[in-house]
């Protein structure tokens, strides 16, 4: 057991942070469209150019997965608008090289999904196989949203330019079957989502800690009130616990149970962090001029995606107590 990052891991995170200083953050997210941002191809390109989204490919097997998870966490902690989780953690297990951005959906998915309009590769997780699709021009369309991620959907078949609200079930039956079990892709998808949740929660919590430290009411910083302190402390426990579970799951190579545990805990934490970080900002928190919503509104979007393969907590119970029986 060793919970300290080594020099190389620290170096990777510092280097990614240095890139994010220039290419990410709330101002960059606003430049991309704010809570309905366009895909950040520039950030994606810079991180790719330095190899930071492909750390999991190198080295001996599992080495690199923890580092990749740290990068995904760091990117979301700085409001990065890229499909980092799928590129860094799901892509490497597909067994074939696919171009990014990568969107992942469950078979039979209906409605909007993250990155679907920007994806050059769509990964479909079905019950018995995983398929990879390369959407052609006009086959996907943007969907308006204000959940902090670029949302898209497949264009209705035979009517690529038709109105979005008529879209039926996505036609995801085609594509190339890849030689990897759905459970493997599903588990890495869950780890990737946990990493994105943790990064996003850290952003929201850090902003809130700063706010309650400086905001004064009744001649005191509101962060000095115990009612505020205790709830933020509980948020911190939730985020720290989720973070280490996520890192452990990545380090272990995403065993299905560990992946489901990490995502379950991150979702529980996200509910708390969403409610409390907003509450302690008062009305300021729901102004669009202030940055909080750029992080918090991403949490429910991640939560929806996290349930694509069923409820993670149920998966924990099934993996632990039912699978073996």
């Amino acid at each position, binding site marked *: *057991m*060793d*919970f*300290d*990052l*080594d*020099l*190389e*891991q*620290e*170096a*990777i*995170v*510092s*280097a990614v942070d240095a*890139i994010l200083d220039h290419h990410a953050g709330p101002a960059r997210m606003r430049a991309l469209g704010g809570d309905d941002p366009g895909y950040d191809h520039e950030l994606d390109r810079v991180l790719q150019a*330095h190899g930071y989204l492909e750390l999991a490919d190198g080295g001996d097997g599992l080495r690199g997965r*923890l580092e990749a998870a*740290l990068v995904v966490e760091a990117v979301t902690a700085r409001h990065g608008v890229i499909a980092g989780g799928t590129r860094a953690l799901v892509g490497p297990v597909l067994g074939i090289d696919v171009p990014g951005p990568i969107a992942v959906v469950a078979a039979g998915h209906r409605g909007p999904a993250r990155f679907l309009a920007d994806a050059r590769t769509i990964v479909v997780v079905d019950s018995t196989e995983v398929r990879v699709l390369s959407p052609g021009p006009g086959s996907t369309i943007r969907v308006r949203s204000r959940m902090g991620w670029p949302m898209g959907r497949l264009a209705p078949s035979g009517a690529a330019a038709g109105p979005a609200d008529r879209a039926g079930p996505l036609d995801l039956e085609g594509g190339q079957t890849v030689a990897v079990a759905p459970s493997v892709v599903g588990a890495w998808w869950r780890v990737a989502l946990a990493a994105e949740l943790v990064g996003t929660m*850290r952003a929201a919590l*850090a902003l809130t*800690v700063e706010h309650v*430290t400086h905001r004064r009411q009744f001649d*005191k*910083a509101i*962060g*000095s009130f*115990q009612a*505020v*302190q*205790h709830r*933020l*402390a*509980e948020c*911190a*426990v939730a985020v*720290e*616990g*989720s973070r*280490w*579970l996520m*890192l*452990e799951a990545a*380090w*272990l190579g995403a065993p299905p149970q560990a992946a489901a*545990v990490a995502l*379950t*805990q991150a979702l*529980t934490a996200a509910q708390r962090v969403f409610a409390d970080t907003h509450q302690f900002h008062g009305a300021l928190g729901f102004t669009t001029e202030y940055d909080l919503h750029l992080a918090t509104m991403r949490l429910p979007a991640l939560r929806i995606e996290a349930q694509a393969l069923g*409820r*993670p*907590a*149920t*998966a*924990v*119970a*099934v993996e*632990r*107590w*039912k699978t073996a029986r």
Partner: protein
Amino acid sequence: MGVVETRRARGHRLSAPGDGPPDSEGGALVEFEWSQEDSSFRTQLRAFLDEELPGRWTGAVATLGSRENVAYSRRFAGLMAEHGWLTPHWPTEHGGHAASAWQHTVLGEELWSIGEPRGPQYMNVNWIGPSIMAHGTPDQQRLHLPLIARGDVIWCQGFSEPDAGTDLTSLRTRAELDGDEYVVNGSKIWTSYADVANYCYLLVRTDSGGTRGQGISVLLVPTDTPGFAIRPIGSMVGEHSFNELVFTDMRVPVSCRLGPQDEGWAVVREALAYERVGAPRWARAARLLEEVVEWAIANDRFDDPVSLEIVGRARATCEAARLLYYRVIDERDRAQGSSANPSLARVAMVQAERIVAEACLELMGAGSLEYASLADHQLRKSLAAGVAAGTYEVQLNLISRLHLRLPKG
């Protein structure tokens, strides 16, 4: 990856709020696996426990360490001592093997998860013994340490008073010096195992001047000292009974004082630092969850989606507590300074105890109502989790201050 190399040369590190001070060597690789040595220690320990315990203890998790089983606890601790497993983390000159903090953790996990068959003795070996090593006179060490190392003695801790609980330094039990004896008057409360203990690690006030932390002394008192009265208090927690201690003109030789007079608060704080994170409650909660799921499967009660959901969440909460607990051990293993990590772990453990209680009630349904059912037991245990050895709210205060660095109230 030129950037990586440049940064590596500078030795930058990830800084998350609440991280301890940087390790100047840079840590080794993050690792979530047990070493060969620790794993084999666990295997040996389990083999011993499997041989010693099964069949003898039904519902062991619930009752094994209880007051009623104290005779067994004495025998069990003696057996552990014979194997060198009672005080493996102690230094060799006091009969230990200078084992790593991780082996000590394995011991705690394995024993707590089956109900702590050492009973009250975990307290002796974890912090009372080390406190005597650090501050005891040669005579005190010669008397007490071998008794503790052999498992031949039970201690109780005389800390809380009717008007001094979480605010411990407001304690008022007085010890007046009279020649070479202290005359002690006052009372202590919530003292577990006092009725079976041989000695009491007693906090008294020897001087009422100065700040409240000053003027406190530690006395190592035999419980059969005249003037030491013990009154049992019924408890719904079920772990073990509480006691009230009343001291009336109890005369204690000065030679029983541990550490300097009036500076006992520093002695106690240091003693408790050995036990910053407390017992691995998550391990017990996780084990109990396994037992209740086994019960549910055997009774065809494990298919309801709501049950699966809460059981999954309970398992995840126990797992989070496990990693936050391990992080504290890792920190201690490197002898890093104080941090909020023990408090983060403790809060997570309380949450684990509580959600496991919820899961037990949900899964067992009417079965919960039976006397000493797993649900009945866990519900009670979870109540104590947020109170014993530092309340949940005090831990949250520490997290606010040390981890989030929020302004003082």
